[in-house]
């Protein structure tokens, strides 16, 4: 009985095995699998959704162009809902079940920090789409990131202040990790540039009114207000400043680089200055700008496929996936070699800037990744 079964099994399995082997060789090369984890739902979904859409767009484009050296690209995308636990589970699944070659994402700094141990242990390259400098400082062997750090945005703002001969500033920030990190960086970099911080104010993420904080700032001799936050707070700050008749310039962070800010702040958005990646002002860049053609293509492709405009968050995913793909082309399907290739990437033109990685630099960007942008007639204008 047992013997018969075994024989039968062989008879049945052999042709199947043969078929798989032959068809595998003849038809197509092995599929390259890359993992992606984004906060597609949950509070951080404004980040995760364009990231997912961008990755799908690129996956289609790459496969239509013949894949990576003839290998089809497959991106396995999981939703983290912006949650640390779910993110860890997704990463484990990608590493041990799907056996992907590299991982891009997650969208948030918190979720990224929660999985660093896991990817370091499994020795798999990770390119995060989150902003915090803590992700790459100190440098972790297997961890990279594409978004520009706060440090660079602050450096760009300091340059701008110096150009305008402003040497006394007031800081107002939202009391969450994003706002506090911006404030800390300003506190470090401003004195180094000879700029004095004359007031520190804070507001809660859901605060309906900031006139009290701004009244205090009005009482100081600050020559500019620097606001660090994400909507809706910064829009309220802009409106309250108008209300109080404050004439000094308002400089915001790159956290307001979306149309929502203009919509909420209305008239008060006019004249606000902030640092941003080049994507939102791609049209206005000089033709000599190496990023221009790429940015326009990405913006057009995205608009065509999804009927809405691309944003910087999608851009971070664009950079992350393209970095992995270009490393894969050179290194082949070997995780350690892919990592080495990413680390050796020089002059890689992405949406967020021109990346130059090295063993001591896993973000690869300088403050030149930012340009200063102002708002005029409800539109972004490149500040020259």
């Amino acid at each position, binding site marked *: 009985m047992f013997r018969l079964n075994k024989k039968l099994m062989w008879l049945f399995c052999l042709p199947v095995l043969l078929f798989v082997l032959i068809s595998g060789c003849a038809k197509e090369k092995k599929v390259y699998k890359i993992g992606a984890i984004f906060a597609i739902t949950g*509070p951080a*979904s*404004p980040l995760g959704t364009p990231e997912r859409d961008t990755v799908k767009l690129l996956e289609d484009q790459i496969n239509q162009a013949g894949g990576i050296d003839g290998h089809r690209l497959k991106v396995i995308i999981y939703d983290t809902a912006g949650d640390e636990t779910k993110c860890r589970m997704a990463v484990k699944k990608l590493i041990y079940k799907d056996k992907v070659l590299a991982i891009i994402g997650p969208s948030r700094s918190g979720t990224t920090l929660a999985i660093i141990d896991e990817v370091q242990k499994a020795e798999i390259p990770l390119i995060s789409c989150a902003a915090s400098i803590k992700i790459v400082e100190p440098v972790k062997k297997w961890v990279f990131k594409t978004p520009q750090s706060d440090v660079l945005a602050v450096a760009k703002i300091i340059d701008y202040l110096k150009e305008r001969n402003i040497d006394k500033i007031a800081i107002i920030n939202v*009391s969450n990790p994003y706002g506090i990190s911006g404030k800390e960086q300003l506190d470090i970099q401003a004195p180094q540039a000879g700029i004095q911080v004359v007031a520190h*104010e*804070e*507001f*809660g993420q*859901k*605060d*309906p*009114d900031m*006139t*009290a*904080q701004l*009244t*205090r700032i*009005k*009482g100081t001799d600050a020559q500019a207000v620097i606001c660090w936050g994400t*909507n*809706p707070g910064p*829009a*309220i700050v802009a*409106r309250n400043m*108008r*209300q*109080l*008749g404050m004439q000094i310039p308002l400089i915001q962070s790159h956290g307001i680089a979306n149309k*929502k800010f203009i*919509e*909420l702040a*209305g*008239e*008060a958005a006019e004249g606000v200055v902030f640092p941003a990646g080049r994507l939102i002002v791609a049209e206005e860049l000089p033709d000599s700008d190496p990023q221009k053609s790429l940015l326009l293509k990405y913006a057009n492709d995205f608009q065509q496929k999804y009927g809405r405009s691309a944003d910087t968050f999608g851009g971070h995913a664009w950079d992350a996936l393209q970095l992995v793909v270009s490393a894969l082309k050179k290194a082949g399907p070997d995780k350690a070699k892919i990592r080495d290739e990413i680390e050796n990437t020089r002059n890689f033109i992405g949406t967020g800037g021109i990346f130059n990685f090295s063993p001591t630099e896993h973000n690869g960007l300088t403050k030149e990744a930012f340009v200063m942008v102002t708002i005029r007639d409800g539109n972004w204008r490149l500040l020259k």
Partner: protein
Amino acid sequence: MTTYSQVVQYVITGITIGGIYALIALGFTIIYNTTGIINFAQGEFVMLGGMIAVSLATTGLPLLCAALLSVLLVTAVGLLFERLAIHPLKGASIITLIIITIGASIFLKGVAMLIWGKDAVRLPSFSGDKPFHILGATILPQHLWILGITLSVMLLLHLFFEYTILGKAMRASAANRLAATLVGINVRKMAMCSFALSAAIGAVAGIIISPVTFSSYDVGTMLGLKGFCAAIIGGLGSSPGAILGGFLLGILESLGAGFLSSSYKDATAFCILLTVLFLRPRGILGRP
């Protein structure tokens, strides 16, 4: 800017925000008085008022029409809420009903998120954004609207409760349910009215602040809590107490943010609450 004009500025800001807290606190009070329930979905009525008004206004309706329609719709939501979630549970204890209101709050928030998404939206100001100056402080026309409408709502409520049969019946069932039933007042119907009235007041609050502070699906939670704070400070169940508590909370919060530290603005509100509860556990105007 002199300290004097700073104080004026803080007080003006405080009065406007305080007016909103007072309206929300009144909503708590009305439902509490007639049913004994603390309705934690009160903040959600505020949110719905703002969001529906914005949606209607963007379809091209005149602002006034959008606002009135929004109040009507939210009143209907309040009625439905009472009919579907509170009324069917005839013999349930008060604590069960309170927990149901928390559930309703989460439900309404979730539905709002699905309908309107997570972004904040803004209603245009009722009459422009040109600030004017009073005693060295600046104030927006919208602040006057907020103050004016808040005071009118309070006056109307007062007239309603003092001079109409329905208002008197609601007060009667608040004072003594059994006695009210004995004189022929349908106490359960009064409960329904109280929910409708609270929802309407909440909607008004949500509409008038939207031009200044924006609306989004999750503004209700914090506003609801602050309104609840105000109701407790003034003495739960007392309408003048709710108004006093609202203004007091708004002004002290604003002064605290101005003179102490803006980081502790919310902490200020809850410290005031604790202080009042230590000194007068029934609230400032609470019945002993």
